[in-house]
């Protein structure tokens, strides 16, 4: 290693150390709700901003409230158990946030240096970098440092600002105030960040305020809830459109303005409504009003479907398979117990289907299969458990995201060391002939081997011990016949 490279390497380590050390001792992690290991759940983190040390309990209450809206909003509510929720408290020197727009600016000394009035928008609540403080390390950088320290496997993060004034913005993580109406915009922003949903409103600054939003001329939007396609068969939410719904469902007669017409269809009807993706014409949204267009209304069926699919992009419907090892060996007289632990939506159960070597079977307890080795037979078998979320919230799942499976290879061993040798002394002789006769003619109970499917005296493998078996044992004991030619294969079919 050259000296220069060595210095570079050491400095690389220094940089990493310094990068992470800024908030090492800062921040207290609180668990708001845990439904499973982070690796198996979607992890949401709320970080405190503008709370002084004495307001930690208030922050936890506010964080809980901010997330509570998810428990009562479809489709998030159905999948509450798929989420873990954490809160990271870090104290600010002062409560609140900066407000620059008043006659006398209000400036607060807060941990992330949050501010309203970002980029000239009073309600745009941001943390640096922004037009008031361009330094990344004062805002976003601190968020990442705290997340790396406390919940590095987070999925969604939210900075909750202790200020009653309505405000917030989205982005890599949302920044929102504690105003009671804020959860609505949180859900809208999570629709972007989590499910890749697009904005369904048809302007930037507002109807009549934009000069160049007449017609969208671009490519098909990648967002699942916006399209330029009007061919019924090719619309990306075609399975949600009734055959009786006209397409386009609405058309904007004057692309210079937002379409003023009221909804001509019953509320919630899925179709193609012109206007969306910030344009008056050329782009279509799935319903007249959805939470991706207006706050205070429900997510539309198309957005709900995208959100549920997003759950399953991240986590499987199966939490674990037991045994964890995919292969096991049992004896014929033993039983293999296989189990899957599935996730549990709030109001419906996941469908569980079992297959042995491709043939379906239904165990009494859906998640647990107890399979006798004798039922499988000697040899190696494949046992598969398929778990499906058949929720009505998703009508189309082309990537089979709502399905996962667990598979085991089960080897069933057959051992019959005493077959044709009922006394099991290693050879067929007169005593074995006597025993076979007793079983065949004198009502003596047959002798079974635990790991063998056939009785010791049933050397013809026909299920009973008869004179045929006596003759065969005699042949082997006294007439020099070889067991392989005289006896059946006790492990055979």
């Amino acid at each position: 290693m050259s000296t220069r490279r060595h210095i570079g390497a050491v400095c690389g380590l220094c940089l990493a150390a310094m990068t992470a050390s800024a908030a090492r001792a800062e921040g207290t992690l609180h668990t708001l709700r845990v439904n499973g290991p982070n690796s198996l759940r979607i992890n949401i983190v709320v970080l405190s901003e503008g709370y002084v040390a004495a307001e930690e309990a208030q922050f936890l209450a506010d964080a809980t409230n901010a997330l509570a809206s998810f428990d009562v909003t479809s489709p998030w509510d159905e999948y509450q158990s798929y989420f873990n929720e954490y809160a990271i408290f870090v104290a600010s020197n002062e409560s609140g946030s900066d407000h620059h727009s008043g006659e006398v600016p209000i400036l607060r000394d807060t941990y992330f240096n949050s501010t309203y009035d970002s980029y000239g928008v009073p309600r745009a609540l941001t943390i640096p970098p922004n037009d008031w403080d361009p330094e990344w390390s004062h805002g976003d950088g601190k968020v990442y440092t705290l997340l790396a320290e406390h919940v590095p496997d987070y999925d969604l993060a939210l900075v909750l600002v202790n200020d009653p004034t309505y405000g917030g913005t989205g982005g890599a993580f949302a920044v929102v105030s504690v105003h009671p109406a804020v959860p609505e915009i949180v859900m809208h922003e999570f629709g972007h960040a989590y499910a890749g949903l697009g904005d369904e409103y048809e302007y930037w600054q507002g109807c009549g305020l934009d000069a160049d939003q007449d017609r969208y001329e671009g490519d098909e939007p990648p967002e699942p809830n916006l399209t330029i396609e009007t061919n019924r068969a090719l619309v990306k939410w075609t399975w949600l459109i009734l055959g009786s719904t006209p397409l386009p469902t609405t058309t904007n007669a004057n692309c210079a303005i937002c379409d003023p017409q009221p909804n001509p269809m019953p509320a919630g009807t899925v179709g193609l409504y012109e206007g969306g993706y910030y344009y008056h014409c050329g782009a279509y949204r799935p319903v007249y009003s959805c939470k991706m267009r207006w706050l205070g209304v429900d997510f539309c069926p198309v957005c709900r479907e995208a959100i549920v699919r997003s759950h399953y992009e991240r986590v499987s419907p199966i939490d674990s398979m037991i045994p964890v090892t995919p292969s096991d060996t049992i004896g014929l007289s033993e039983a293999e117990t296989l189990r899957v632990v599935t996730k549990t939506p709030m109001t419906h159960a996941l469908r569980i289907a079992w297959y042995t070597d491709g043939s379906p079977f239904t165990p009494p307890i859906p998640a647990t299969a107890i399979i006798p080795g004798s039922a499988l037979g000697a040899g190696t078998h494949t046992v598969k458990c398929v778990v499906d979320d058949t929720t009505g919230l998703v009508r189309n799942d082309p990537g089979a995201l709502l399905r996962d499976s667990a598979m085991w290879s089960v080897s069933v061993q057959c051992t019959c060391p005493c077959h044709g040798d009922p006394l099991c002394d290693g050879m067929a002789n007169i005593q074995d002939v006597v025993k076979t006769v007793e079983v065949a003619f004198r009502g003596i109970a047959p002798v079974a081997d635990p790991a063998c499917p056939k009785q010791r005296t049933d050397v013809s493998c026909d299920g009973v011990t008869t004179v045929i078996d006596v003759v065969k044992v005699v042949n082997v004991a006294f007439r020099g016949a070889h067991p392989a030619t005289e006896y059946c294969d006790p492990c055979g079919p």
Partner: protein
Amino acid sequence: MDITKRLRAAILAAALTALILGPSTVQSENKTSGGIAFLTVLLTHDSVQLTGWTITKGTLRQPRTPTDRGNLEYEALSLSGDVVWKGSLSDPLVRRLEYEDPDNPGQLKAKIIKADTARFVVRIPADAVIDRITFYRVERRSEAGEKSAAVRRLLGSVSCPWREVKK
């Protein structure tokens, strides 16, 4: 002692202090087979530069299906060029501020803020086989102003920092 010497001494002292008091989450060389790497990247219109990195404990969950939602994509590549990890994010140079219209409750408004430079963080597994991280900008035809399929333009690569340390 002139200013340069003082500066050097200060940097050396800071470096040593950071090494001694550094966080437990930062792992040294040869200990990168597990963990989550947070890479801080400085982006301009046509370049990327690694400005910081941290490795924490934990495991980054592999998405069950690749999602190409953002228009900035990144791939962590092995020495042989195999893609070890990939992800995407919205272009950090374009910030969309969304807010509710105070005069029309429920109605959303948006404002686009464009920047010439931006920092962002990507997370990748702290995998010892990763050699470099390559960044691409995905340009759709609407943005490119021409009728063609989306194209992926190479922005640049950064060497895997823990590999650099290991050398």
